[in-house]
């Protein structure tokens, strides 16, 4: 029993660590749709190779759909396999939908009196915000408290693209498009703006990788940093689906956090001209 529990915990730990090293994505089969009540199918996974389900299915906790009118709903026909999660979304309204998940919370690390490293939440366990003040000693040596946010999303549009879903939540790292994410063409530069807790921030590291890395020797990533307006201008490397990854960190956090960090990923489709 003890062994089984230890094994389970270490597996959880492994998964958590690996999830950071790997890439998690939600990939729509189509992003631009015409007609009434189009149904879009999605694949979602955590993988080594972009858009190839070679590692683990994406856990669907927190996964939801924001419709053009702002209403939030569940995905349909959800199935989680070994390497891949699949689901459908029915586009019964005209406009742009967001499909994704977001989470945020505090984490802390410090040195115990006997010189050992301590973490909260403990590795592999979920953070309960109510426990923070009880479990994290405020006067601990080398205490570092971080407010972390993660967001993963993709977009699909039925008919004319709309902007209703791009109202910022002002929580964590968010992407607010200047160029609509379902109106991207290979020959046209696109501008995306990043906000941290609702404010445009300079220095967000943005990486874009075009699909098909399995069939080439280099990732050929586009590496960009946001300017003072929080914007990056992207010159595409041709049509295809792109994996977008952005990260940001600074020390302008709200107490008790001393720093804040945001991670963002998205899948965008760029069409040929």
């Amino acid at each position, binding site marked *: 029993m003890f062994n089984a529990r230890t094994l389970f915990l270490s597996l959880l730990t492994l998964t958590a660590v690996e999830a950071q090293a790997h890439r998690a994505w939600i990939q729509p089969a189509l992003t631009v*749709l*015409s007609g009434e009540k189009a149904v879009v199918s999605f694949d979602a996974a955590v993988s080594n190779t972009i858009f190839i389900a070679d590692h683990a299915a994406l856990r669907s906790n927190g996964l939801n759909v924001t419709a053009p009118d702002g209403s939030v709903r569940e995905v349909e026909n959800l199935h989680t396999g070994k390497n891949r999660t699949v689901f459908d979304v029915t586009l019964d309204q005209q406009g742009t939908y967001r499909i994704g998940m977001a989470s945020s919370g505090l984490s802390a690390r410090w040195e115990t009196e006997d010189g050992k490293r301590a973490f909260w939440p403990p590795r592999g366990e979920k953070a309960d915000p109510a426990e923070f003040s009880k479990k994290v000693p405020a006067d601990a040596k080398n205490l570092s408290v971080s407010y972390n946010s993660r967001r993963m999303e993709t977009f699909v549009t039925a*008919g004319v693209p709309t902007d209703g879903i791009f109202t910022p939540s002002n929580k964590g790292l968010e992407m607010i498009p200047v160029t609509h994410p379902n109106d991207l063409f290979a020959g046209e530069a696109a501008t995306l703006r990043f906000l941290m807790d609702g404010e445009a921030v300079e220095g967000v590291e943005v990486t874009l990788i075009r699909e098909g890395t399995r069939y080439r020797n280099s990732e050929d990533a586009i590496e960009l940093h946001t300017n003072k307006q929080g914007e990056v201008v992207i010159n595409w490397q041709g049509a295809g689906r792109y994996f977008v990854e952005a990260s940001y960190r600074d020390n302008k956090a709200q107490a008790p956090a001393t720093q804040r960090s945001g991670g963002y990923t998205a899948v965008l489709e760029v069409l040929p001209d």
Partner: protein
Amino acid sequence: MTIFRQTALAALVVAAATQAQAADLTLDIQLPELAVAEYHKPYVAAWLENGNNEVVAQLTVWYDVDKRNDAGKKWLKDMRQWWRRGGRSLELPADGISGATQGPGDYQLTYSLDKGPLANLPEGDYRVRVEAAREVGGRELINLPFHWPTSEKTIVSEAGSSELGKLRLTIQP
């Protein structure tokens, strides 16, 4: 007699004036025969853009209008440029614009430059864009540029290489 002659002359002048004003834009579209195992008639759209790449008018769209529950609209987005250049905000079927898909052959469309959406075009460069997309097939987009106004008849010819055959635009001022 004098009165009659004057009337006749006036009538002739009116006729001549009417003829001189009958400015037309004629678009000839050829859809090629394709030796493929599974052939579906292509979706075809044509529209007019000005020199700033702004859509001036939708000319035509051929899609599967007879499918039950408007299911034929599902493939409209495969005409990718047309879809973003007004197709997606067009209420279909649209009078005088939408029609059924056509098989291989030659088709001629004529639009008045005196009335309707093409009347009073400001001076400038224009292009008629023709896009075709075929289910289980390819997609092709051809541009036919011209300048308006023009004092003489203008003919612009292009040829597609896959989904479209010969295309000819005739501007009769």
